[in-house]
């Protein structure tokens, strides 16, 4: 599939996204849109966290804007952002040729393994707040980490059965490499030239500055503390309200509860950016968010989306 020049991943950030979407769509993935909440990584999207639980096959790919308040640098660091984009692919169960599929996606965006040194470097992935871990690699291209490659073993403290393969691409880094620029702000976003050209800086420099001020200076920590408690409470309240009244009934309300788990996690990140959380407290916050994630995961297993597919019944309903 050949794209017009302005969508060439070597000169267009959005072209990079389109290319990855096309590639994974060709390999059977549903292309989702970003989740509409602040998350720390693409993994938090319920299409990954919750859908990696239970037996049903699942194949998705999507872009996810991700927020790491502590990584804000007031736009002064060319490589570090408090808001950036991840491209996320989740394949359940992990196909036997996942590494080859991944390399195919690199080739599609112009990272040819005849010219580039591509390496799978050990990385035991762990998300303490999600109660999740998996084994896999950081994928390096010429010494640069371009993706995370993980075989999920546990999510929300629940064994993955079957195991999903998760690929997370760091889009800005890859784009900087493809476009040959040294600062993220110099990236060509829309692939146009001259007065039509929009750079990453045009789009996000001001946002990085403002959010850095907010994350490090202006955020109201007392208010954040309260919001954390509220989100935590809301999550458990919703789960309790929707929980099955009789055995073998379905859970009625998991996704809205999970939204509040995500919210708590982001507020925790904001508090941490302000440096108001001590080491012991930090552990306590992590445990609280993990507990929410675990409750959500358990509840999700009691929903339709996590039930085994009964072939006969499905066929009869069609």
């Amino acid at each position: 599939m050949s794209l017009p020049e302005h969508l060439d991943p070597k000169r267009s950030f959005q072209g990079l996204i389109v290319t990855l979407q096309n590639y994974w769509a060709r390999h059977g993935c549903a292309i989702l849109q970003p989740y509409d909440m602040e998350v720390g990584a693409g993994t938090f999207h319920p299409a990954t966290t919750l859908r990696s639980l239970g037996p049903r096959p699942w194949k998705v790919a999507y872009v996810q804007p991700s927020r790491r308040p502590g990584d804000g640098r007031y736009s002064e660091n060319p490589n570090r952002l408090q808001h950036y984009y991840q491209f996320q692919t989740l394949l359940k169960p992990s196909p036997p040729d996942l590494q080859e599929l991944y390399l195919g996606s690199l080739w599609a965006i112009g990272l040819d393994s005849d010219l580039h040194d591509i390496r799978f470097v050990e990385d035991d992935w762990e998300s303490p707040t999600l109660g999740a871990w998996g084994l896999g690699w950081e994928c390096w291209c010429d010494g640069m980490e371009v993706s995370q490659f993980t075989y999920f073993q546990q999510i929300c403290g629940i064994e993955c059965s079957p195991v999903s393969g998760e690929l997370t691409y760091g889009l800005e880094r890859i784009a900087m490499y493809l476009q040959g620029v040294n600062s993220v702000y110099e990236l060509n976003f829309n692939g146009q030239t001259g007065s039509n050209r929009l750079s990453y800086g045009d789009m996000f420099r001001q946002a990085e500055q403002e959010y850095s001020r907010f994350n490090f200076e202006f955020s109201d920590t007392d208010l954040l503390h309260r919001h954390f408690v509220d989100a935590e409470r809301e999550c458990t309240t919703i789960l309790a309200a929707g929980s099955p009244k009789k055995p073998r009934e379905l859970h009625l309300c998991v996704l809205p509860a999970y939204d509040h788990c995500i919210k708590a996690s982001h507020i925790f990140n904001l508090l941490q950016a302000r440096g108001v959380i001590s080491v012991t407290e930090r552990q306590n916050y992590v445990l609280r968010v993990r507990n929410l994630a675990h409750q959500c995961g358990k509840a999700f297993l009691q929903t339709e989306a996590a039930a085994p597919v009964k072939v006969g019944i499905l066929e009869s309903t069609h």
Partner: protein
Amino acid sequence: MPDLLLELFSEEIPAALQRKAACDLERLVTERLIDAGLTYEMAYKYWTPCRLTVDIRGVSTKAKKIQEKRKGPSVKASKTVIDAFLRAVGLDDISKTEIVKDSKKGDYYYIGKIIQYERKAQEIIAHVLPDIIRNFPWQKSMRWGAASDKPEALRWIRPLHSILCLFSTNTESDIIDFKIGDIRSSNVTYGHRFMSNRRPIIVQRFSDYLVKLEEAKVILDAGRRKEIILADARNLSCSQGLDLIEDEDLAEEVAGLVEWPVILMGKFEEEFLIIPSEIIRLTIRTNQKCFVTRKLGEKNTLSNYFILVSNIEAKDNGKTIVIGNSRVLCARLADAMYFWRTDQMPLPNLNRLAASADRFNLDLKKPLDQRMARLDHLHVTFHAKLGTQGTRVERITALAMIIAPLIGANSELVRRTAVLAKADLQTEIVTKFPELQGIMGHKYALLQGENKSVSQAIEDHYKPQGPKDAVPSDPISIAVALSDKIDMLVGFWLINEKPTSSKDPYALRRAALGIIRLALSQKCSIHLIPLFQKAAQLLTHHLVKDNLKIYEERLLSDNSVKGDISSVPLVQKEKYDKEINARVEPVLRDLLSFFHSRLKIYLRKEGAQQNAVDAILTPQDDDLLQVRHRIEALTTFIKTNNGKKLLDCVRRAVGILNSEAKKKTMIAEIVKPIFFSQKEETVLYDTIVKAEKKITIYLAEEDFSIALTSLASLIGAVNAFFEKVLVNDQNMSIRVNRLALLVRLCALLAKVADFSKLF
């Protein structure tokens, strides 16, 4: 005899685990072959990122006769069950089995003996390998793919793709056929992921396996890959007028990341060289797995060229790869530069640190002081049972202030060092690279204008780290180094986390050795026990504060406390203090004896005579330097004429006393001069009394050499006594008195050293 070739081909195995996994595989396979009655001549193991291989030479084709007993059904079982058992063990009649009683159930059942004559090696191997692979001792392993939802799913370090298993001679080659999950063993392997066509490679035996892999751009032997990396890196550096900074561990790691190493050279901007070289090196090494270089002849400063190891021979000879790596490295160094500069800037929200600043008398205008205040403010834990880093710094400071005057260190500078010693734990650089603790504190201290000795001591208080690490010589460094280590040892001893023969997670042996080396090489004459006691007092003060509440609750539920409830807390605190103190003393004695055992090892390595050490060291000795002085003095003295003579005297006296002790002869409790009947007795007695007075003084003054030489004054009198006087006089009163005189002599000598250890 045939050879067995086994290759387990998987997705990339973590570099650090490859060697051990290959060793485990070789061990398990050979053990199981032997257990099954097979023999082999040699076994070799290999590993690459994607494969574990064992090559076992000269395997016997048939196993020796082995008798296997198999438990059958109960004697009460039905005929069909018994017949099935007979078929399974290959017997035609039940009379050919034994009947055995099950002691637990009280039941009788059949035992069938199967004698396995000459079981074929292939069969055995096909039988044991699936078991080994399924139960492989990975510390952490994973499931994958569609099969991962089944409980019996195969676990491996990363997805396992194929198994090559051949049993071959020079002329023939057989596949040993077995199946694990979806994988069936075969004669197929695959080459380099990128530099071969990735089509199946058919293998006959090890010799063509090795050659075909190399044709497919895989160097099987990790040792060879490492040699290539180091040799090529040296040559490339040299050709550019540079010196490679050798790094064995890194070479080993990189050899586990590539199947076909290609060495390339990259460059970063010179402006980054203003970052301390330790940080540059760690950034490049830890994050990028690259080697750093120096200009030829340069001692300390790094060059801005680095060596990288690629896994492919690229179409453009590596140009793209070098550009990419250099760019990443520059970004990393830019980060490091950012951290290095951030650490020198003020922290936000300084007002919340005021209380902590007061506690440690910190100057919140200075960056490192701010970091220490934050370390305290955030209640960063040192150890769950030993409290926070903040309280630990408090203790180290208090203890260092006590040590300072003992070794002639300036107290104010010692205090300043101690309060800043752990501040760098809160810096960005040390958070990123913990191994730079101390080193960064030193640099930041200099930058904020601290005294040079103080700055140096912030780095040196961690020293000496190992038996070969340099020992600091500045008294300020010594005071804080001793204090840091004593607090740690006493703390872990109090919570009973002592090192065992196999585990020493807090490096307590190293800490004790550090104190020994500090005391001995820097001539610090200090008594350890009072310092231990002070450290314990500071620690228990913190522990009491933390635990008093729990203790009070326990006591309130305890019936032994009665009466007015309002006075209870005070009574309890006293009681608690007492309880703790009673328990602390034996712990500190135990710690001292731990020091003695480390000291003995250290002195032996230094060349001290074992028996001289034993003659000197008593359980109370807590001044290590003095112990060594005494050992040296004793060793010198016993080589002199007088020394030899004195030793003879002691030997005779002890000999007599020992033989009388065996006979259970009575000995008077004290010497009574009225029972002396010969003048030699009186002379010896007077000499002893005189010597006793002198030696007590010398020992009090710790003048051990003089004490020893003054013992020589006894020689004449003792020899005269033994020559002229018969100890075993017929008169009982005279005899017991003479023996008592010898006891007194020995007691005097024992004050100086246990000479009996020198015989």
